[in-house]
């Protein structure tokens, strides 16, 4: 790229250069130089996305049209066969159900808890910074370390049942039953990451003009209706964004599941990302794994599209 664009300044024949200098501005006007700089500045990022994102997506589409098992090493074009296999896969409905329950659970608990903590912390009192630090701290703890510790505490003879036992409750063997295993992965995930949404909600709450609250107070509005009629609508852009970002994040939770339950017991916590990993890297079925991966991608794209649409329709309070 540089060889084709830079030379003009040096290669131009002296006579022509002189003529050009005499006749007017050189080819390299500020504007043209700017355009070139712009392209050069974005080049590394653009190339990175092209090579490490777009190219692999293209390859995944190609793989999904092939039957390719790494063990046998044979790759044959099969057209839509992998897509047809989606319908015949007896495990897929369970996986999709687990994905919906997990992502839905994470979103509901995360947004509710994040908003609750943010509302509680959105006032001035001694210790507010300390609490903010405490609630945010799991975010900087490595996912694997955090999940290992929780896996430990959730054992049949672990700390949580120990605590429950101390108050006379006989706790379940959390990770060994489908329902409680799902509850465990959701809670573990939410507590580790809710600090991010808390911070975003706090920033949004602080952006609500004080006058509105005062006006409502003068009108004698109850604090519940103030929250429903003033606070919620005004932070709706943040709310919408955090919901989508949280769903998309939940759809991509691999480490938590891998470390805490390994997708079990049976398939109860095998979410789509984990299933993709199993098909591609444990069963070495590249074709079917890629097909599942593209399904995941289409979910994420659909949600993002939905966010854009909703943002245009619902949210009136953007600046």
């Amino acid at each position, binding site marked *: 790229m540089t060889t084709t664009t830079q030379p003009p300044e040096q290669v131009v024949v002296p006579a022509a250069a002189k003529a050009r200098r005499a006749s007017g501005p050189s080819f390299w006007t500020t504007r043209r130089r700017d355009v070139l700089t712009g392209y050069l500045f*974005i080049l590394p990022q653009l190339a990175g*996305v092209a090579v490490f994102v777009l190219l692999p997506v293209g390859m995944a589409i190609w793989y999904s049209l092939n039957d390719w098992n790494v063990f046998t090493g044979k790759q044959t074009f099969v057209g839509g066969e992998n897509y047809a296999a989606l319908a015949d896969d007896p495990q897929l409905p369970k996986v999709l159900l687990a994905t919906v329950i997990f992502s839905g659970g994470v979103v509901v608990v995360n947004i509710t808890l994040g908003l609750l903590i943010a509302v509680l912390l959105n006032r001035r009192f001694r210790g507010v910074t300390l609490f903010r630090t405490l609630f945010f701290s799991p975010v900087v*703890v*490595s996912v694997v370390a*955090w999940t290992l510790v929780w896996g430990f505490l959730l054992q049949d003879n672990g700390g949580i049942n*120990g605590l429950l036992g101390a108050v006379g409750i006989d706790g379940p063997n959390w990770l060994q039953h489908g329902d409680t295993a799902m509850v465990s992965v959701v809670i573990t995930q939410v507590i580790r990451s809710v600090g991010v949404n808390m911070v*975003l909600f706090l920033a949004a709450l602080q952006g609500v003009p004080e006058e509105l609250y005062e006006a409502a107070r003068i009108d004698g509005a109850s604090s519940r209706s103030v929250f429903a009629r003033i606070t919620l609508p005004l932070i709706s852009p943040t709310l919408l964004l955090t919901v989508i970002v949280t769903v998309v994040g939940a759809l991509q939770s691999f480490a938590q599941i891998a470390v805490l339950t390994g997708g079990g017991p049976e398939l109860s916590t095998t979410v789509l990302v984990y299933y993709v990993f199993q098909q*591609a890297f444990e069963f070495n079925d590249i074709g079917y794994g890629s097909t599942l991966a593209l399904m995941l991608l289409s979910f994420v794209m659909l949600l993002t599209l939905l966010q854009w649409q909703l943002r245009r329709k619902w949210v009136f309070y953007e600046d």
Partner: protein
Amino acid sequence: MRTDARTSSAVAVPRRVRRALLVIALAVLAVPFVVPTIWMVAASVKPLAEIFDAPPSLWTDSPTLSAYAEAFTFQPFARQYVNSVYIAVVVTAITLLVSSLAGYAFARIRFPGANALFLVVLTGLLVPSEVTIVPLFQLFKRAGLINTHWPLILVTSLAAPCVLATFIMRQFFIALPLELEEAARLDGLGRPAIWMRICLPLAKPALSAVAILTFLASWNLYLEPTVYLTSPEMFTLPQALTRFTDAYGGQMWNTQLAAATMTVLPMLIVFVLAQRHFVEGLAHSGLK
């Protein structure tokens, strides 16, 4: 608060009670956020026999560092630590450079196709790494880079986390007043000089947000090292943490907790010291 008490002492008491209740509620709520980490540190210095004590306790009468010693002898843990640190530092440095260049160009320089190209870059945020990892594995295998750190460094510092960084930098530069740059242009400064001498020094808050987010993203990588790395001396920390199992596949609990503590504590200490940067950086990260 003091004026409240003076104006109406009848209201002052309930208000103080309410405040106390609020603090108690928050303290209870904070338990699951804080206690696991404290328990991890406490249990890592307990003798193995005491780890499953019921009811669980955060105290031991006979603290021992044997689990810490074992973490280093069972796996090349020091080496794995160095791997994680150097990969995170390299990734963060590259990301800072790439994202501040691209973010500046998208925010400030007008060139044909800028908007379309920005959307192309943003797809990097949309595509989950689980989708690209199968083809990328094949690509890196063909390039002979499996069981090296190259896939981790290249993909992390140019794909998803870097795209988020570019987005943050762009939002920041858009909000930056133009006047300074215009003055510099009148003085005959070129774009690269303006970027380096005027804009970067002003972008410190955005750069520190990017640095924190990128470092954390790299430090936490789990899927990628699991896929690309095969020998223990190449492992990164999250991957190493899951490999503390004895010959029978049983987990070596206290060794694992000691290793986890060593992974987590430095980040927590940095966070507590610089928590304003973390929290404000995130709030301003343009996640809007």
